[in-house]
């Protein structure tokens, strides 16, 4: 392993080294001729780059006038961007509403099934009770005589559970995806504010 600190020389030259790292490199430069030569070489390179002159560009006012002639009437994305922003914040609200609806419907279905098992729904039409179980495929298969008895019960229970499970999971996945994107955007904004400060 090399004792030289050449990988930190650029940061030192650019004034980006702080604290201990800065002091260590400064001390090292006093003792290491090779690193001093490397630093001098980097300084010379920087000077050489600054010897390249910039040409005489169009004056700012005239340049702005030239740009003005080529502009469209209005910034085209302004309205679209506002709509996108509102839509962006509606995503978690919409997901929350969906999640509440799923929970409430599941809760109501459970109540109907419980009430039915206690014989409290004797006057209620059969379609309402069957619909509340959420076992549409089990009922359909049973109508064609393909399911009966224990098989029907298991299929009905599994089908209801699987549907609820899939709905909760997919809602959670979309919500988590939104949180990841929101967090990334927030981090980027924070970096911008640091820069402003």
């Amino acid at each position: 392993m090399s004792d030289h600190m050449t990988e930190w020389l650029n940061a030192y030259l650019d004034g980006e080294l702080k604290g201990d790292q800065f002091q260590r490199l400064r001390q090292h430069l006093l003792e290491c001729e090779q690193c001093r030569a490397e630093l001098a070489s980097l300084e010379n390179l920087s000077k050489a780059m600054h010897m390249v002159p910039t040409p005489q560009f169009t004056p700012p006012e005239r340049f702005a006038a030239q740009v003005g002639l080529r502009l469209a009437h209005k910034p085209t994305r302004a309205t679209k961007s506002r709509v996108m922003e509102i839509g962006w914040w509606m995503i978690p609200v919409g997901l929350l509403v969906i999640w509440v609806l799923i929970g409430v419907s599941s809760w109501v279905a459970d109540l109907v099934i419980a009430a039915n098992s206690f014989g409290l729904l004797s006057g209620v039409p059969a379609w309402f009770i069957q619909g509340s179980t959420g076992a549409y495929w089990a009922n359909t298969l049973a109508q064609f005589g393909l399911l009966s008895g224990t098989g029907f019960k298991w299929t009905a229970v599994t089908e209801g559970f699987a549907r609820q499970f899939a709905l909760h999971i997919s809602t959670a996945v979309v919500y988590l995806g939104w949180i990841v994107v929101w967090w990334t955007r927030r981090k980027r904004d924070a970096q911008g504010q640091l820069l402003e400060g």
Partner: protein
Amino acid sequence: MIPDAPEKELVIKAQKGDRNAFSELVCMHSRGVLNIIFRMCGDAQIAEDAAQETFIRAWSHLGSFRTEASLRNWLYRIALNTATDMLRKEKRILPGLVDDLPLVDPNPGPECHFIDGEHTALVQQAIQSLPDASREVLVLREYEGFSYREIADALEIPIGTVMSRLNYARGFLKEKLEGKVALFKEAERV
């Protein structure tokens, strides 16, 4: 024209379609945008065209700009992308060209000193033979004086990547130019 109006107010007005406010912003940032594009491509005419294109793109996407962010960084990012697109279209980058230039005598006599034009061409060609990603970082650091944090923010890359690209760019230029010893001797005399 709105003299001395704060930049944020000008941006908000421009976002509502105020062309005079945008014109003021163009005046404020045209020099910086022209400079970095010129440093990227080394051609004044391409720089003028690409800078105009930069501000036209900025105008059409101004609605998506968040006023709490830095307008300069946002414009510079558009400028660098525009310059890269335009150079690809123009195909005026000649990588490796600096290799074709003759090596200079390590102990040149008075007749062998570089004249300004040769020096300029040599350095400019070496910069242009850098990969786009390293060239962008180098230009922002050397010519615009951006800090590593500002470069990271403008290009949306981590600070570690800024450092590695800068190390690569300077190492590459040293390797290309150190053979032309007189160049560094010229710099030492400045």
